[in-house]
């Protein structure tokens, strides 16, 4: 066929697989009417794995759709991370939803659609494509947050998420319009053209603010604790893993394009980003300290981790350390996805259930973790591994990720940010280890048995394996991430 843009369609293969999977799950929900829906999680995992495999096989690399999107190692890495996050969340969701008698195809369908948006976001090199991808991702996650709609908390969470998400989309769009005015193009590659003009700085700052909502950076984090706490726990895991990874991929591409060819740390835009990083690291950690609810603590921890990742993005603008910084960023995102899903899974297994999907306020209280090591040693061990990784203690993968990011920051001569990162991580040790202390050193409160299901156990085992194995032998993945650091803008 003459002039047929085969490459454009081939490049979208992972996204096509995810979309077909979503439609398949939705149609199975209405055509295969039976009470047993275990196959839906299986279908989701199969399609997630297929999409990840397609991203790795990568039949075509390079720019597609008139340079509005790109398939490179970076996008492939991001796609694999979000697909892995989807597979794990689907397994977690299967056990969690079945216990609430709420397993439906729509849950998996929405998750697959959302992942398709995330994969597209990793590929976007144009502000409008990025916007469409953000909306595909966000609309799916808004609805997922409201999945248990009878409850008060999920409704509140979904409504807050929707309203603030809409504001962030508006900020992103307004910024895009200003950038178009400044540089005459919506392509990332042309962003640097308008550099120096106030219009360009205002546009970039608005775009960054829009993305900062998605990655939950202070001062755009206000929705995070309420939404993370109120949303169904598997959905929280999915959001923490996927949305964050995809939004960071977008931020890295936009930031590096806008800063291409500058002397580092001299531009006003990098000043904006480092301001975000400083605030996020300090307040994310400070606000996590007093939390009694473990789910809420993990939400603030997600904010804090966004701060460290922002340091990685900043370091990547320096020519000499770009590969190392991007490798650290990608490695960190992959590890954080596994760790966050794992931690939220344990929280979901322990939470107190009540009628009508409305968790009581103390559903995730620290007390519920007391004596877990005696009641369920496996669960307690898994949670301990995740918390140590979040705190960045060797030999977990979280340590390696932090090590790479802070090394890159020092290489980029961002000494202040590196020191602040290490200090605030030390603060994190307190609130992470407090949960470990409760699990191992407090007597059990004689509570009901935690939820257990085969699918959830598989997901937990996989997450533990990722965190431990990547902590011990990080090299292969770091090398992959380093290759992905050769980013196309």
């Amino acid at each position, binding site marked *: 066929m003459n*002039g*047929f843009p085969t490459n454009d369609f081939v490049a979208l293969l992972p996204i096509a697989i995810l979309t077909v999977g979503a439609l398949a799950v*939705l*149609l199975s929900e209405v055509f295969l009417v039976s009470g047993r829906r275990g196959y839906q999680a299986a279908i989701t995992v199969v399609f997630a794995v297929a999409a990840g495999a397609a991203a790795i096989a990568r039949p075509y690399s390079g720019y597609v759709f008139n340079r509005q999107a790109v398939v490179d190692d970076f996008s492939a890495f991001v796609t694999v991370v979000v697909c892995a996050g989807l597979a794990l969340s689907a397994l977690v969701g299967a056990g969690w939803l079945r216990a609430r008698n709420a397993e439906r195809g729509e849950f998996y369908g929405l998750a697959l659609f959302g992942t398709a948006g995330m994969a597209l976001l990793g590929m976007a090199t144009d502000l409008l494509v990025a916007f469409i991808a953000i909306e595909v991702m966000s609309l799916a996650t808004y609805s997922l947050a409201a999945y248990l709609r009878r409850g008060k908390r999920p409704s509140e969470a979904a409504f807050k998420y929707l309203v603030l998400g809409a504001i962030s989309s508006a900020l992103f769009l307004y910024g895009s319009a200003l950038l178009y005015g400044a540089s005459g193009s919506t392509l990332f590659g042309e962003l640097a053209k308008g550099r120096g003009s106030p219009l360009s700085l205002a546009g970039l700052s608005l775009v960054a603010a829009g993305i900062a909502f998605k990655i939950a950076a202070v001062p755009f984090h206000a929705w995070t604790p309420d939404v993370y706490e109120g949303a169904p726990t598997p959905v929280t895991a999915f959001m923490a893993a996927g949305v964050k990874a995809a939004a960071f991929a977008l931020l890295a591409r936009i930031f590096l394009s806008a800063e291409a060819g500058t002397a580092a740390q001299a531009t006003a835009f990098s000043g904006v980003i480092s301001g975000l990083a400083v605030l996020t690291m300090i307040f994310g950690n400070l606000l996590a300290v007093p939390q009694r609810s473990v789910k809420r603590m993990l939400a603030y921890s997600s904010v804090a981790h966004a701060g460290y990742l922002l340091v990685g993005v900043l370091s990547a603008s320096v020519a000499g350390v770009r590969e190392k910084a991007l490798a650290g960023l990608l490695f960190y995102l992959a590890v954080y996805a596994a760790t966050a899903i794992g931690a939220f899974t344990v929280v979901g297994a322990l939470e107190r259930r009540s009628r009508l999907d409305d968790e009581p306020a103390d559903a995730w209280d620290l007390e519920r973790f007391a004596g877990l090591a005696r009641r369920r040693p496996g669960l307690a061990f898994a949670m301990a591994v995740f918390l140590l990784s979040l705190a960045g203690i060797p030999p977990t993968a979280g340590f390696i990720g932090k090590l790479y990011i802070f090394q890159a920051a020092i290489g980029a001569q961002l000494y202040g940010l590196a020191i602040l990162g290490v200090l605030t991580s030390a603060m994190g040790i307190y609130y992470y280890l407090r949960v470990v202390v409760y699990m191992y050193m407090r007597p059990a409160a004689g509570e009901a048995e935690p939820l257990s299901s085969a699918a959830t156990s598989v997901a937990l085992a996989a997450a533990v394996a990722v965190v431990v194995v990547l902590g011990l032998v990080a090299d292969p993945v770091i090398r992959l991430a380093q290759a992905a650091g050769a980013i196309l803008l």
Partner: protein
Amino acid sequence: MLTPLQTYFPIGVALLVAVGLAALMVALANLLGPRRPSVVKSTPFECGSEPAAGSPRERFGVKFYVVALLFIVFDIEAIFLYPWAVLLLPSQGYPGLGWAGFVSMGIFVATLVAGLVYVWKKGVLDWAD
């Protein structure tokens, strides 16, 4: 050569014609139409449902909402289909959208059909309670 303002002249004419026609129709209906009011005719009119009386905070079928959503989706589809149909084939030096356009629209419509099948089987279009 037309000045930029002059190029808008046809639009101005169209606007005048539209406003004039609307005014003419209202005026003619007022002048010529017979007027035989009845109780039924002068009740407030609402699409498809009993007119709201008393408190507006009444429960009503959520079906309207879903149908409205469906309407928007297929309305947008029609908006996309019209220019696509005009531009698909080559004409007078314009290359046309070709197979790429055909396949893209095929994917779009197929996705919408899958969605329609889903809501149909889900019983959204089933109006009887």
